[in-house]
């Protein structure tokens, strides 16, 4: 393949999925209690996008990956210590609020502005990557909005695979209903791809990659531009944990035979 690609990956930070979350309402609206204290990770589906981007770039000489991330500088620095060891990229940090309750439209405006201003970015070769939904807001709209702002009208969501062809066109597999994929062929870049899990495993940590990345990441973090997100008429009436709590029967002394009989009855019951 002789397609030099410019891949921009949009990825935020999210609280580690193993953390218990408790909503609170403050003067600026709802949030998560002690959010700044919770360990954070790169948004899982966006992380898949980053690994797919790195894989694509490795197979296309002359290509490059930018990681555009909106979040608090402290959180970004913490997350980058781990992510930087996985794959090579240039970080474009934006210092601003992130979380489930910020407005996707304002987030998209900030991201689009940052991407449009990237020095050296060839918009004709652009592949805009990200997770199809975040693990915070989970709306699945931010990437679309960024794509529209950048004038890209070939967009794919729930992507599990991209396969480039010699002529620069590529085939995309998107998740659709019924556990199936929709296969599409796009004539070429630019395009937006919101990734699901893809097919790649998480890359192993490579300290050399980490050291090379960190040389540019730390200065970039220091120079991160601040961004304020406008609520733009969005009001939260309530934010709460679900009240559902079940009374769990714990069976410690049942034999496998007895359990199997009970399960057969349960499975068969309407």
């Amino acid at each position, binding site marked *: 393949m002789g397609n030099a690609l410019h891949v921009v990956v949009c990825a935020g930070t999210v609280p580690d999925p193993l953390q218990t979350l408790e909503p609170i309402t403050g003067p600026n609206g709802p949030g998560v209690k002690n959010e700044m204290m919770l360990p954070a990770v790169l948004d899982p589906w966006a992380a898949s996008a980053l690994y797919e981007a790195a894989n694509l770039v490795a197979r296309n000489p002359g290509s490059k990956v930018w990681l555009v991330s909106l979040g608090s500088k402290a959180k970004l620095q913490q997350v980058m210590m781990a992510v930087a060891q996985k794959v090579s990229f240039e970080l474009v940090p934006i210092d601003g609020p992130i979380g489930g309750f910020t407005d*996707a439209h304002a987030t998209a405006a900030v991201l689009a502005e940052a991407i449009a201003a990237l020095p050296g970015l060839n918009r004709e070769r652009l592949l805009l990557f990200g997770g199809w939904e975040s693990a915070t807001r989970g709306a699945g709209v931010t990437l679309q*909005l960024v794509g529209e702002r950048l004038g890209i009208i070939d967009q794919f*969501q729930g992507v599990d695979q991209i396969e480039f062809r010699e002529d620069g066109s590529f085939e995309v597999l998107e998740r659709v209903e019924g556990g199936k994929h929709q296969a599409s062929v796009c004539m070429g870049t630019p395009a937006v791809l919101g990734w699901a899990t893809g097919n790649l495993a998480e890359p192993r940590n490579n300290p050399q990659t980490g050291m090379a990345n960190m040389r540019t990441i730390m200065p970039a973090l220091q120079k991160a531009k601040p961004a304020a997100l406008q609520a733009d008429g969005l009001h939260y009436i309530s934010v709460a944990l679900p009240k559902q709590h079940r009374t769990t029967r714990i069976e410690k002394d049942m034999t496998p035979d007895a359990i199997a009989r009970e399960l057969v009855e349960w499975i068969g019951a309407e």
Partner: protein
Amino acid sequence: MESILALTHVDESGSLTKASLEIVTAAAELASRLGASLTMGIVAPDAKTAATTPAPAGARLLAVTGEAFAQARYASDAAACEALCRAAQATIVLAPTGSRFARVLAGVAYRLGGVIDTHLTAIGGAESVEATRWFYRQRIEGILSREARPWFLLLEAGTHAAFTADSADAQVEQVPVELPALRTTVSGLRAPAQGAQTIRPDAKLLFVAGAGWTKKQSDGKVHAAEAGELILGFLRLAGASLGSSKSLVDQGGDGQPVLPFLTHMNQIGQTGATPRHAKGLSTCCHGEEPHVVGWRFIGERRAISLDPNCGWTRGKADVVYVADAFEVMAKLNGLLDAHKG
């Protein structure tokens, strides 16, 4: 006064999708509550389909038709929806959160200077519109409202009854669409190689396999092949859908023992599906993913685990059997087989 548009599309058979019919119900209810005008917009490959679509009495019926709209594709679908919204001059647009509209409607909202919220589970409010949705992958529930219009509201399937009525007598207004140059061609649908074992929404029971299936058992050995046979046997006998924890799916990439039929399509939880089955049986799972996030919309939940103190099952499952899943599943398959025979 609000003006409501119900955006719908047809499936391969030429009928409105079930999710679209649910949207018609939701839109009719909302219009009635707010005293708003109601328009129904249809995206269909041919005009005949649009003309026979059932519609609420008094609703205006708009349609975008043409061969280009037989395929679910961003450029053509966004143009179609934009044209329908402009023609309807809607302040509130209701649509299903299916893959087709979820792919395009944020872009359409931007083109119209509007806003969008997706994955809604309810629309309430007395004189205003209040939308309910989940945040942080089904962990926190919130109710929100917006001042900006048009406001696109994408509802989850199953939140309303499907609209039923005789075929419409209303006059269908064809809305012209100016398509951009189409650079994408849809070549079709593909089922994964393990299609029979991916999450199937129509199954009554979800079987969740955790990483414990491929760990060392009481004899100090791994029995991945036996685990695979037991799981596939159960799926066949019970007609269950198969879900998996992230850790078990990821093991393949780490070179650890795997169940070869599992892919990311089976994954539930934070980075996978949040399926909606009547019943769920988790086996060898430990952690929050299968029991909290992935199970949010499972009705009755049971678990088989060797850990009597697993905190994630407490309060989340109805019954926890502290037992060896290998032994239980072997017995269970035997009984199910005998019942079938």
